[in-house]
């Protein structure tokens, strides 16, 4: 790991977006992920060093989150810092100079309008190097299938907060597995359990975003 990578990782982990951001208080008026990324690239750092820093920082905060040592606000600030750094990488992604690990399609299932959990998973998985295709909330099986057709090597994440939408999750998993058996399906949400995931034929259940990211990294390796 380069010094640049470590510096970006620390800023992402601490949620230091840019110089103007007052958070965290002990880094007030110091450069954030935004300025430091720009400066590093200007002085010749490789885009991959920045991406590695984002991944390392998000991995660390995601792990602390799964251990209940930090909470949603910390994760959100880290994700914002990550986005600030990633914004500078956009041209390098487009040129193919840096690559993502793959595509992760995510959505909240039919009848469920909750997006906070889904968004947290998106942020952490993106931070671990995946491109996110966010289909939004109240997403039907057909919409997932269409997206899978466009991104054949993707993995899919389904979210549900309501106990009443768990049957829709079951139907969506069945539809995906029927049409595209090789596609890995991850599920999560407050009422979801490993037992339920096993029963409906999902490949992975995670109680927290980092678990999903870890599964994807292992499965993709």
């Amino acid at each position, binding site marked *: 790991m380069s010094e640049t990578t470590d510096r970006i990782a620390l800023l992402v982990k601490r949620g230091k977006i840019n110089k103007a951001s007052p958070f965290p208080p002990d880094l007030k008026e110091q450069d954030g992920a935004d300025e430091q990324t720009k400066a590093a690239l200007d002085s010749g750092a490789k885009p991959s060093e920045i991406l590695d820093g984002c991944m390392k920082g998000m991995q660390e905060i995601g792990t602390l989150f799964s*251990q*209940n040592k*930090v*909470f*949603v*606000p*910390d994760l*959100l*600030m880290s994700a914002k810092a990550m986005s600030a750094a990633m914004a500078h990488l956009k041209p390098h992604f487009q040129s193919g100079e840096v690559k993502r690990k793959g595509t992760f399609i995510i959505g909240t299932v*039919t*009848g*469920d*309008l*909750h*997006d*906070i959990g889904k968004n947290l998973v998106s942020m952490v998985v993106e931070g671990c190097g995946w491109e996110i295709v966010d289909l939004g*909330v*109240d997403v039907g099986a057909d919409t997932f299938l269409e997206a899978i057709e466009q991104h054949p090597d993707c993995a899919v994440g389904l979210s549900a907060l*309501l*106990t*009443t*939408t*768990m*049957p*829709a999750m079951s139907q969506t998993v069945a539809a995906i597995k029927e049409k595209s058996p090789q596609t890995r399906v991850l599920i999560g949400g407050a*009422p979801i*359990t490993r*037992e*339920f995931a096993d*029963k409906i034929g999902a490949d992975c259940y995670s109680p927290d975003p980092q678990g999903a990211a870890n599964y994807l990294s292992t499965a993709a390796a």
Partner: protein
Amino acid sequence: MGKISDMVKRNRVLISDGAWGTSLQQKGLLAGECPEEWNISHRSDVLEIARNYIYAGSDMIQTNSFGGSRFKLAHYGLDSKAEEINRAAAEISREAAGDKLVIASLGPTGKILMMGDVSEEQLYEGFREQAVALEAGGADAACIETMAALDEALCAVKAVQENTNLEIICTFTFDKTSAGDFRTMMGVSPSSMTTALIEAGAEIIGSNCGNGMEQMICIVKEIRNTSSDIPVLIHANAGLPVVKDGNNTFPETPEDMAGLAPKLAEVGANIIGGCCGTTPAHIAAIAGAVQ
């Protein structure tokens, strides 16, 4: 009738109501349907739910307005009907309540202030609109519930305070962390909630939803360590749902919950009711156990 916060000082445990969402589903509410719209389209079903809680012995009942903020209603294209839907919610519960009290439900908007999803002014305006309509429909108190973030809860408290004469109840939903303490998903502990809500002027505080009665006993203890006199309301889930034969069932029976209710009162809860998975039978059993 007076204020609820005065009534609890007379050393009697008051009984609130149980679940609305699960009751609506039993009456045919489908996944993806707007529960609050039933205040207009299925008035008699909603009225029956409210009445069943009064028959079960509730001293106060909620309103079918948990997702009645314009932000939630917008998902169904009903945000322009927020005033009508919330007023109807309170009118229905008022009709069922008779001489009992109506505590109007205001749930979270699903927007995170620190993410910049909405501005504080927009959030305030949403809660103001909802609270004013609920008061117009006959509510006695506002029950701001299932909160996780202090900034959103305090915004709701302020909107109710500055625009209505409703008594203010505010409850948060806590999970047990792996370290064994209680926090909301935004990291708020029962003690930090207590301090912030009392300072903001909430008259009754507490906790709702969550994972069953036993954990609520721990949460009330923590609230009581921070404040010995603020009235405390608890709406506990009948545990967390388990899937049984393809259906969700809640593990705690009326007897289970009633068995723990006296302990909950003993550690300092003044008002006890239920949340997800509780029924009029749960409420009747709890009332029998504590009164």
